[in-house]
């Protein structure tokens, strides 16, 4: 995985496999306090204590298509090698919240990558799932949900190629604005 947005795509796939219908993605970049967090919260089927304990074991997976599950162990490794950690809170039947924390200026922290593109791909590829996305840079933040998008677009399909391009542009413009306003 070359950047954190690829980990994000991977972790959200776990939420989808857990039957989530609402997924919240939060990215918090905070150079001032020297941390970066990435969290994915879903309303999927959740995990019991046993599954939760085995979550970072690469040879544990609930899937039947293969015998290894590398997504979470890889993210944990990336977080820990960047002076951070990975936390997972889950309740069966309620959902799961996974938070990866990184030291912002750590040499081994991978770049954040193109999160806006990752969000648009996830939104367009899963029309039956609602997403909320919150991006913060220091104290300022930008938030968007698929409910707002559907409302603004009057029900036009979010997986239409033109619509996808427009949403990506909007998210990127707002994210860039947050950064530009705060260059010190």
């Amino acid at each position, binding site marked *: *995985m070359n950047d954190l947005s*690829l980990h994000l*795509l*991977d972790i959200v*796939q776990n939420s*989808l*496999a857990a039957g989530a219908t609402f997924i919240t993605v939060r990215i918090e970049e905070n150079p001032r306090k020297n941390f970066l967090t990435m969290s994915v919260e879903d309303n999927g089927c959740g995990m019991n204590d046993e599954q939760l304990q085995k979550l970072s074991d690469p040879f544990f997976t609930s*899937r*039947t*298509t*293969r015998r290894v*599950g*590398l*997504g979470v162990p*890889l993210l944990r490794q990336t977080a820990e090698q960047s002076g951070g950690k990975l936390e997972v809170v889950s309740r069966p039947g309620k959902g799961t919240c996974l938070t990866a924390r990184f030291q912002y200026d750590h040499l081994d922290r991978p770049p954040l990558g193109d999160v806006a*593109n*990752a969000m648009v*791909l*996830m939104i*367009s*590829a*899963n*029309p039956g799932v609602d997403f909320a996305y919150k991006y913060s840079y220091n104290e300022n933040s930008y938030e968007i949900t698929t409910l*707002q*998008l559907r*409302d*603004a*677009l*009057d*029900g*036009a*399909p979010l*997986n*239409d*190629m*033109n*619509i*996808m*391009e*427009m*949403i990506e*542009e*909007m998210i990127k*413009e*707002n994210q860039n*604005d947050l950064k530009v306003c705060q260059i010190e």
Partner: protein
Amino acid sequence: MTKIKSLDDLRQKKQQLEQSMEIREKSDHPESLVQIKVAMATCGIASGARTVMNALVEKIKKENVPAVVTQTGCMGYCYAEPTVEVTKPGFDPVVFSYVDVKKAEEIVDKYILNNELIDGIIPPNYQTI
């Protein structure tokens, strides 16, 4: 056109596109569209599935193909990632292996638009590996 920054800008731009008929009708029947599924589990993503998905989206837009691109989990073909499953209306699904940007474009040009099969098709398999 200035950049899209707010939901209002998004709404206006969408209306412009609607007038020029560049946006699919929301009443589209999904079964009449080509369904393209990109395997986006850890194995797929690490092998470049995201680049492939972006390339497919770009190509479909360029060629104006009536298709939807969705993502799926691991299909069990980790050794052959990135994999892409294409289901044309009235046809059985076909899974393409080792897809990169060039092959993604080939899938659209040759298989989707011209019914021509290309190398790297994974035969139907009804057992998990």
